[in-house]
């Protein structure tokens, strides 16, 4: 049996169509979407790189879509976030919103419901191209000129009216890449100035989480951190299975392939499943619960297997080399003073760690925020742990 390991694509978040989605143990999207549906207008999402923020945002979009206009705006697919201005952000949101409205209109068979006047104004402003979803946009005889913000407001109003929904949710991805600069604060403040009638669910940088988010974006904004599931010991069973399920989904296998049911291998007639499951769970443990790291470990191990044995299921030696690659990467993320600082806060809520160091290490997942009951504590990533102990090859 051959496997399409290229399909793992560790760096590609899932789309909002729900294909391949696996609910994480935290049930993040399933928890946030109802909050928005019942009146929480601003949710700021944080979390380490590779924890699945973009995938959860896509899921939230899908969950909200039945009862409102839910527009997923992936700013970082199109803009250099480092140089993003408020006007660029408004224009991108407007463009995606109009595009979504037109696709939805076409899907429902009601034809185009965005006015020619708005489309013409957006074309004059350069917000939309000469064609939107394959339909030519004429240059109006008398052009309306407005600021990107005013055009966004016009688009929000028109889309709400045209679609018949009373509520619009903007789900904004990519802003976590904003640097900690005054210009970035302007972008975040501009986001918060969008009408209160519009919900905003946005990924934000860690420095916002440790600042005063309600001052940065909107009053009473909810900050929600997407946690990496625990993957150690008995309490980590659900986290390990979550990652195994992601793997089977991406490989296009039935979930039974790597389920806890050992008889599944016999049922499915798949050889080597038991060994494969043990290796997958070991990769899950080394990933610290970060889906991207897990998929990267599995993809790398599979590549080593491909090079050495022509496509066999990766073995322990392949995984060991994949882990070594990742450890090298973590080693380069550590700066002088990190080892002592990290060891000091392990198991605590981390309040004693210098803020800039904490933000840097949390963003990279070198330290992970875990939750046990109502208590939050910091855990060291398994790939970083041996480096802090000074055992590079551990």
């Amino acid at each position, binding site marked *: 049996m051959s496997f399409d390991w*290229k399909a793992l*694509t*560790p*760096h*590609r978040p899932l789309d909002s169509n729900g294909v391949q989605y696996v609910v994480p143990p935290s049930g993040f999207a399933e928890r946030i979407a109802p909050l928005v549906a019942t009146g929480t207008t601003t949710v700021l999402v944080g979390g*380490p*790189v*590779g924890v699945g923020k973009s995938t959860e945002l896509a899921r939230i979009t899908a969950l909200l879509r039945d009862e409102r206009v839910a527009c997923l705006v*992936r700013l*970082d*697919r*199109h803009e*250099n*976030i*480092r*140089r993003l201005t408020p006007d660029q952000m408004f224009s991108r949101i407007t463009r995606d919103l109009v595009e979504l409205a037109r696709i939805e209109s076409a899907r429902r068979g009601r034809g185009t419901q965005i006015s020619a006047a708005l489309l013409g104004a957006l074309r004059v402003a350069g917000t939309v191209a000469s064609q939107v979803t394959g339909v030519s946009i004429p240059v109006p005889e008398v052009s309306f000129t407005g600021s990107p913000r005013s055009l966004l407001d016009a688009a929000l109003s028109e889309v709400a009216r045209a679609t018949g929904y009373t509520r619009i949710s903007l789900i904004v991805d*990519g802003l*976590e*890449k904003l*640097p900690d600069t005054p210009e970035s604060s302007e972008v975040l403040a501009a986001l918060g100035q969008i009408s209160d009638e519009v919900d905003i669910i946005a990924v934000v940088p860690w420095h916002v989480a440790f600042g005063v988010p309600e001052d940065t974006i909107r009053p009473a904004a909810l900050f929600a951190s997407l946690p990496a599931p625990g993957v150690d010991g008995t309490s980590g069973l659900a986290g390990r299975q979550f990652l195994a399920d992601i793997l089977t989904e991406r490989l296009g296998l039935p979930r039974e392939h790597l389920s806890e049911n050992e008889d599944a291998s016999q049922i499915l007639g798949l050889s080597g499943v038991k060994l494969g499951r043990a290796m997958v769970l070991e990769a899950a443990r080394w990933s610290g619960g970060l889906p*991207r*790291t897990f998929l*990267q470990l599995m*993809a*790398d191990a599979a*590549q*080593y297997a*491909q*090079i050495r044995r*022509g496509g066999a299921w990766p073995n322990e030696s392949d995984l060991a*080399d*994949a882990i*070594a*690659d*990742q450890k*090298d*990467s973590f080693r*380069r*993320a*550590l*700066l002088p003073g990190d080892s002592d600082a990290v060891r000091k806060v392990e198991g605590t809520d981390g309040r004693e760690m210098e803020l800039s160091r904490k933000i*840097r290490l949390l*963003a*990279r*997942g070198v330290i992970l925020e875990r939750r046990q009951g109502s208590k939050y504590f910091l855990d060291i990533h398994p790939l970083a742990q041996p480096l802090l102990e000074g055992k590079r090859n551990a």
Partner: protein
Amino acid sequence: MREPGVAIAGAIARDEGGLAFITCPDLDLRDWLVREVESLVPSDARPFRTSSVAEALGEPNRMALIIPNDEAEVVRDLDACRDQALEPPRTQPIVLFLLRDGDGHHTLALEAPSAWSWAGGSDVDPEALAELDMDAEREAFTAEVGTTPEEWLVPWRSQDVPRTQENFTRAFWAMTLE
């Protein structure tokens, strides 16, 4: 153990359209490493050199070899533009050459978690090559391939060996040992 040749080839080939860092001890060796990578990649990768992230992203179907004039700026731009590699999906990787302990690595550690994560594991330092136990490695090569590295490279260089992923990897390994 990880063979350095496998690690370098793996870093470039592991993630279709991904990002790989090759760490260079100095500028002279950086030029040498760029030429080595150019000579080893499959021709359909159509590698090209640039110092610009925007140019690299503008060619999703060619392997971009970024040789930065300003390492820190390039790393910051890669951090801010990572997801542009998803739309349209890249079919060829971006390979960034950085000086060991230089501004680029410093910026990666300090400011650029997205770029760091994007490349996670595709981060090869030729220092490992310098630390090779040449005798043991040559012995391992001969045991696995059946010829010495020099003997194996003769048909490779005359284009008589198929350009498969496995053979590219083997060529990289042999060249580090000849």
